[in-house]
């Protein structure tokens, strides 16, 4: 049984005294949750195929960090990226159409769940290779540095990535060249089916990060306000030339690693324990106790979100297949290979 950080105290809620903002955070998390729940159904009726990695339970990380970023900032995510995409502003329609492989998808149906891209919002996509996104983030930040552009590149990865060589190489490069990268580690205690204690000699990941002289904190990944607060401070420091920063968000996923994973490696008790710390009910309770969220408000929010999901499903199901004549397009730029 891994130790569990303390539950969010009501004081946190007070800190972000702007009630509307907190309601917004709740709505964003709820959108992600309902969207991914519907994905489970779509997958079981084969509308979504291939691999599907759900972030149900980890919504606070994506929403919290995205709130701390500006439209100019760049994002590099992983294959567990639906939440990050939606929180960054990709529409449910474009995202779900992509999951169903339709032309109307954000990557024209070529990427699928692990490769959602949106150039306008600088969402540089998921990545199917663990930790392969880290060097990209370093490069983006290097380009900013060389062109004197003031922005942050937020790079998401899981605890599994920490064991990859690229983690070491990227952290070292970012620190060595003092680059504006915000390393966001979503530590959900399992690298696919292997618990952290079986993969890392040093399980305190923020301690590991500090060995590169990179400022690093851990933060409760089940508390969206705590995540937002930590991310905002870190992003500010990075923006002001403080070099790379590292956030270790301790979180937990309530479903299997992917849609085809028997989840035998975690015992039910542990899952139930973490479910009690579900970030959505936690925030709902806190808001209703403060009298800013009535029963009716919540129901209205649920109904609106359900409608948004239904619309997205109808849009995706009605989506078209990209004509096979275009198979070779975009292998290289507007140039048809002879």
């Amino acid at each position, binding site marked *: 049984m891994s130790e569990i950080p303390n539950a969010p105290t009501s004081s946190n809620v007070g800190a972000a005294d702007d009630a509307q903002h907190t309601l917004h955070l709740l709505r964003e998390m709820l959108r992600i949750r309902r969207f991914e729940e519907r994905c489970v159904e779509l997958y079981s009726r084969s509308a979504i195929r291939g691999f599907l990695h759900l972030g149900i339970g980890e919504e606070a990380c994506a929403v919290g960090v995205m709130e701390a970023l500006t439209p100019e900032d760049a994002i590099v995510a992983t294959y567990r990226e639906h939440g990050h995409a939606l929180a960054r502003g990709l529409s449910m329609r474009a995202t779900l159409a992509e999951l169903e492989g339709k032309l109307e998808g954000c990557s024209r149906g070529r990427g699928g769940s692990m490769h959602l891209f949106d150039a306008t919002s600088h969402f*540089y996509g998921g990545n199917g290779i663990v930790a392969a996104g*880290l*060097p990209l983030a370093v490069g983006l930040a290097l380009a900013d540095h060389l*062109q004197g552009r003031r922005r942050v590149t937020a790079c998401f990865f899981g605890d599994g990535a920490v064991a990859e060589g690229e983690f070491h190489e*990227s952290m070292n490069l970012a620190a*060595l060249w003092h680059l504006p990268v915000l390393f966001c580690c979503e530590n959900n205690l399992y690298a696919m089916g292997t618990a952290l204690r079986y993969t890392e000699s040093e399980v305190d990941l923020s301690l590991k990060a500090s060995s590169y002289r990179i400022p690093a904190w851990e933060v409760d990944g089940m508390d969206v306000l705590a995540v937002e607060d930590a991310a905002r401070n870190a992003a500010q420091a990075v923006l002001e030339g403080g070099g790379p920063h590292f956030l270790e968000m301790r979180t937990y996923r309530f479903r299997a690693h992917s849609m085809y994973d028997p989840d035998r490696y975690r015992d039910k008790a542990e899952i139930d324990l973490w479910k009690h710390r579900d970030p959505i009910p936690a925030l709902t309770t806190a808001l209703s106790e403060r009298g800013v969220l009535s029963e009716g408000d919540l129901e209205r929010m649920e109904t609106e979100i359900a409608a948004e999901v239904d619309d997205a499903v109808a849009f995706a199901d009605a989506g078209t297949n990209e004509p096979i004549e275009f198979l070779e397009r*975009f292998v*290289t730029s507007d140039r048809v290979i002879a």
Partner: protein
Amino acid sequence: MSVITYREAVRQALREALLRDDRVFVMGEDVGHYGGSYAVTLGLLEEFGSERIRDTPLSESGFVGAGIGAALGGMRPIVEVMTVNFSLLALDQIMNNAASLLYMSGGQLNVPLVIRMATGAGRQVGAQHSHSLEGWFAHIPGLRILAPATVADARGMLWPALQDPDPVLIFEHAMLYNTEGELSETPEEVDIDTAAVRRVGDDVTIIAYGGTLRTALEAAEQLATDGVQCEVIDLRCLRPLDMATIRASVSRTHRMVVVDEGWRSGSLSAEIAARVSEELFYDLDAPVARVCSAEVPMPYAKHLEDEAIPQVSDVVVAVHHMVT
């Protein structure tokens, strides 16, 4: 006209690119203070400073991935991987990121990156430092693969490669750095699409690239004394292959030999032979011949290494066998 070395030509190309476009910067192991493992970047650090001539830690996946990221971020990076042998550590970044991002993103993200690598054997540096893997990379859709064999190409190919919105890999054969060639003061533009007919002939077409061009040309001279006129084609671009030039030649000579320093099985020469048999079957008057490296980890001993690498005599024998 002045006579300069292949190494000097590459250095001039780098210098010209750095001067013409301030988005260009060079990154790689020992490219700065050490001046480049093959002394290609000697002097660039002093002239352009450490921001644009960046020594990197020994982190091939890291700095190649960073090169890709910087290209995504609007720069025009030139990453030097010391030799193709070390590129294996960066193969995932090159294939799964650089080559695939434009396609996976449905056309949103271009990766205008150039990666330079030394390649090939001949310096008795043993199995791990003597690979010739251009054929591997030429297998990957999304990449453009160049093999400058002459001083003019070494000088001319870099700039158009930097203008290409997609990733370009340039393979410089290690044995070519010391070779010399003529170059005009204002070198003319070269393309990075087509093959070049380096020697005209009617009897046999010899296809070569990079380090094997010299071998092919020497063999052709020898064969000429036997009355066999060979046409020597320098591929220059290994992906996409300029099949038009190959077709035009082989449909005339009806015989083809490919000289490829890669291992025979699954090599670039295998691809060329397959395409010719598919597209020119009824023009062939003899089976396609391939002169490749022996399928061995490259031995250290000189006599063994020479035996393993395609030699002039191997090409002559292959042609003789074909024109009896």
